[in-house]
């Protein structure tokens, strides 16, 4: 039985890798939680692709402003230093490589860093892509934050994505509930294992040739 850390523990782990001053876009869903774990006083600038830098947390009750929402259409707030701009300027910012980090969810990530997160390809679903393809190529570092296994038990890290692609060779690092993986020229390398998980187990479960790039001793892993 492998160790799985909780969604919040994973969000906290991602947050530890965000340096002060980073400009960051947090995808809809679990990635949004990363903001909750940034240390107080650490200045990180949040971008939302619907036209804002310097986005603050959700408002207090009674202070919801329908003109101030994030890409998930949830109410947010304004921080000192924020700026508004139109949609073309906002996506120019992403496409031009000006964001430091995007954190995204995934259906699948291939060992060369292809991302599939916009469509399961199901025939009866209504296709909707939103900003997913722009986010996939929209930062210097593209982090994926996901469970290692889908509910069906299938691994989400794969040799080739079977779901429709969002972006090609775009993912830098994958934070999963089991371990952290870096996309490297030689494939996926494991940089950190959570709990008692071992490379061998993960190799077996995913069927991938994982490179061992862990630098933490077991005792170091207690942070997870």
């Amino acid at each position, binding site marked *: 039985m492998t160790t799985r850390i909780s969604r919040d523990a994973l969000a906290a782990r991602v947050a530890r890798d965000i340096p002060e001053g980073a400009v960051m876009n947090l995808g*809809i869903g679990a990635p949004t939680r990363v903001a909750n774990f940034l240390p107080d006083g650490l200045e990180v600038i949040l971008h*939302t*692709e*619907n*036209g*804002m830098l310097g986005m603050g947390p959700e*408002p207090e*009750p*009674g*202070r*919801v*402003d*329908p*003109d*101030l*929402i*994030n*890409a*998930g*259409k*949830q*109410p947010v707030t*304004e921080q000192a230093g924020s700026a*508004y*701009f*139109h*949609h*073309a300027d*906002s*996506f*120019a910012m*992403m*496409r031009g490589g000006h964001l430091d980090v995007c954190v995204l969810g995934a259906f699948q990530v291939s060992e060369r860093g*292809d991302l599939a997160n916009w*469509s399961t390809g199901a025939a*009866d*679903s*209504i*296709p*909707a*892509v*939103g*900003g*997913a*393809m*722009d986010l996939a*190529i*929209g930062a210097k570092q593209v982090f994926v934050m996901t469970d290692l296994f889908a509910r069906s038990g299938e691994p989400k890290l794969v040799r080739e994505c079977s779901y*429709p*692609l*969002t*972006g*090609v060779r775009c993912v830098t690092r994958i934070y999963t509930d089991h371990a952290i993986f870096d996309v490297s020229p030689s494939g996926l390398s494991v940089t950190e294992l959570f709990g008692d998980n071992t490379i061998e187990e993960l190799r077996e479960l995913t069927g991938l040739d994982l490179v061992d790039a862990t630098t933490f001793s077991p005792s170091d892993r207690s942070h997870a």
Partner: protein
Amino acid sequence: MISKIVSGLDEAVSGISDGAVVMIGGFGRAGQPVELIDALLAHGAKDLTVINNNAGNGDTGLAALLAARRVRKMICSFPRQVDSQVFDGLYRAGEIELELVPQGNLAERIRAAGAGIGAFFTPTGVGTALAEGKETREINGRQYVLEYALPADVALVSALRADRWGNLVYRKTARNFGPIMAAAAATTVVQVDEIVELGAIDPESVVTPGIYVNHVVAVGERAWLREGEFVGAVSTEGAAS
């Protein structure tokens, strides 16, 4: 004297003909020109192609226009939302056409139309189903796909304030698609909370210069400002950009 101000919503949309390509500003509900959409519904133009980021929420605004079967085709990035039941039904029944465009390419195609750029090479979508059949090219070692300008006959936009030359300022993230749609349409119709004296908008802070605006109609201050306090019960949509 130049005045782009029209007194009524009906007059503002009266020039929209059957078959028109209509851009509608807004991202979800933020910046959606609800009063203009209602006027377009009352006006009766049909067989429309509508360009909007989404495909309607709930039963009002764009969703009502769809429900009335006025829209032949939607060009958007994210039709599927928790409350997009009107579009969903039409789409599943094969009664509406959909052109799905990644959001940034949608924005850039609209911007290109306003800016006189015929087409551009973008990295977004390369290698995906949404680039299938499109021209691709490697430039300085990076792969790009060619996307074309997306112009419109009419843009319906919501802004905060205008002067009689049509200079506009917006409010917070309700700005979204407004400025680029205003520039991309042959005729741009804008609803604003308030019309102010010429010169009252700081020239350094004008977001849409009046050159892009044809008709302005004042619809009164938006509810959450009129009430003097922000609201506590705006529904937040779980799903998606």
